[in-house]
């Protein structure tokens, strides 16, 4: 996997999106105490950069993304702050119909399920433009142009096709065109390659990367796959059991982790080109927010765990310039 390209970053301006102590509570399935599935998550998405949100299932990464676009399950309760261009999206009066699609758009995991089976690709991609009152012929031209930009061959013919008539890769390209139609500033991509063939995955990632750079888009890429994040992201946010374990520049985070969880994740990725086929799997099952261990949620699976880890929830601290870790012994982890 190639090194992430380091995009020039504006350090002075406020970030496009800032999550500050974001919490999401979901009602427990059987009633009873709500479960805090996102617990005090803080990170920035500066304009024009890609932030990778990494975690196992149940880590709260998808819920975090859904909170950003206001599509959490109906009975979810949120707390903390999600500042979009400095304005808190979580305050009651937010006009989501203006934000969604036009400011923040989303690409979903399974394009076959995420596209309406009974509407043509062109209609779905162009819907946001047509709703904005653009004339029909102009919308068709714009849709053909969008499909062309995401690498759909023969776009004029393909826009009259139904989702089931396209291949998985083309469907995901159409999904990306759909997300780009409203000219958003931030693209949320939830496991955008997980449902695709391995050979197609790399091409879709490259496409996302090039679109992001050409248009100066910001992207929040949610993935369980470290290699995807390493490939595309400028910044990495590693989540465990609803909390941020560590965050920082993607390259440094994955090369020299500042949290034992990140280190274990990196070690669990099999190296493809070597003959030492078996990587070290993470010991134990991932903690779920519903029964989060005391202290540091990772301590039962951590080889460095000490008494303090069982009792005291680690504070997130800046351990190197631009790198934040929620481990009591972060310096030890980086050093080792």
């Amino acid at each position, binding site marked *: 996997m190639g090194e992430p390209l380091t995009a020039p970053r504006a350090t002075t301006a406020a970030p496009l999106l800032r999550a500050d102590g974001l919490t999401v509570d979901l009602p427990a399935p059987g009633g009873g105490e709500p479960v805090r599935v996102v617990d005090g998550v803080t990170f920035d998405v500066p304009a024009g950069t890609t932030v990778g949100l990494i975690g196992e299932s149940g880590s709260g990464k998808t819920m975090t993304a859904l909170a950003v676009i206001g599509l959490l399950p109906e009975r979810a309760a949120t707390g903390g702050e999600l500042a979009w261009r400095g304005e808190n999206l979580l305050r009651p009066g937010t006009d989501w119909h*203006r934000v969604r699609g036009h400011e923040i758009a989303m690409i979903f995991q399974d394009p076959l399920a*995420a596209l309406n089976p*009974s509407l043509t690709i062109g209609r779905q991609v162009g*819907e946001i433009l047509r*709703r904005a009152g653009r004339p029909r012929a102009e919308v068709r031209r714009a849709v053909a142009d969008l499909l062309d930009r995401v690498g759909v061959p023969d776009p004029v013919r393909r826009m009259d096709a139904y989702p089931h008539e396209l291949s998985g890769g083309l469907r995901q390209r159409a999904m990306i065109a*759909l997300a780009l139609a409203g000219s958003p500033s931030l693209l949320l991509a939830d496991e955008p390659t997980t449902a695709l063939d391995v050979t197609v995955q790399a091409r879709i990632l490259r496409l996302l990367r090039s679109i992001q750079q050409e248009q100066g888009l910001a992207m929040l890429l949610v993935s369980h796959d470290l290699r995807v994040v390493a490939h595309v992201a400028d910044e990495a946010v590693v989540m465990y059991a609803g909390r941020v374990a560590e965050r920082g520049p993607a390259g440094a985070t994955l090369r020299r982790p500042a949290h034992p969880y990140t280190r274990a994740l990196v070690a669990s990725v099999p190296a493809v080109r070597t003959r030492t086929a078996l990587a070290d799997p993470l010991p134990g099952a991932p903690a779920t927010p519903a029964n989060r261990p005391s202290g540091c949620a990772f301590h039962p699976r951590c080889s460095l765990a000490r008494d303090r880890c069982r009792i005291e929830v680690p504070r997130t601290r800046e351990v190197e310039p631009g790198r934040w870790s929620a481990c009591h012994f972060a310096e030890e982890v980086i050093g080792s």
Partner: protein
Amino acid sequence: MIRMIVRRLLIGLFVMWGAASVIFIIVRAAPGDPVTVFLGPDASREQIDRLTAALGLDRPLYEQYVSYLGDVLRLDFGESYRLGRPAMEAVLERLPATIDLTLTATAIAVIAGLALGLLAGRRPGGAVDRVVSAATIALQSFPTFWVGIMLVLTFALGLRLLPSAGVGTPAHLVLPAVTLALPFTAIVARLTRSSITEAMSEPYVQTARSKGLTERQVLLGHALRNSLIPVVTIVGLQMGALMGGAVIVENVFAWPGLGSLVVGAVANRDYAVVQAVTLLIAGIVMVLNLAADVLYTRLDPRIRTEARS
């Protein structure tokens, strides 16, 4: 698509043969026969024999069956002994009234059912949903004739708003059509509700929301179209059942359609008329089911692709 229609029509012919045979056996297996009904209890042996022979009922059953099938193939549905004219002629004369009634009832059921189903399915478990669910269960449970009588008591005799029976003005159509439509409305409403609820939890609805559409646009522009597929199928199937329900409703409201004709024909053992009505209704049901199948291939492009290949 054409091949599918042709194949369905061929299967339909087979079904028609089955319907013709079953009704042939049932009318003859029922106690009583046209001769006794027509001549009354005081007829002489000689009279009875003469009429039996005239109606061809003295021949062995298989012979009657074979000649009946042969006649049906030549579109000759026999003579009504009671009306003294071709049975199908009498039946076709009554058909328009029944079609008026069932089409009106279908229109009411589809419009009201879709509206109620949409309202309920928008918020499953909400107040509207609970009221609609309770009402639809009640509507499906009441027998049609009882509902008809209650409506007559309320709107015709009590409030004097509508005529209680007969034909003439559009107002005459209201009570029988509503009576016939009520259980059908309940079926459409329940199906629409569950279908909409399911569609609203599909990922493509989330995609539609992510474009910034309002809930109404998501519901009508994305969820409704996909939830119509099962509804169209059920409407096609239920319209057949509706023709059956019409028999009862027409008798409650003295509506001069197939229903009242067939009840009279059964009571008088008028075999030819009963057989003609049965075959006509079977044919209509077959065409309706086929129409429903064709229509849902229009609604679901995935089936359309299969049908084309």
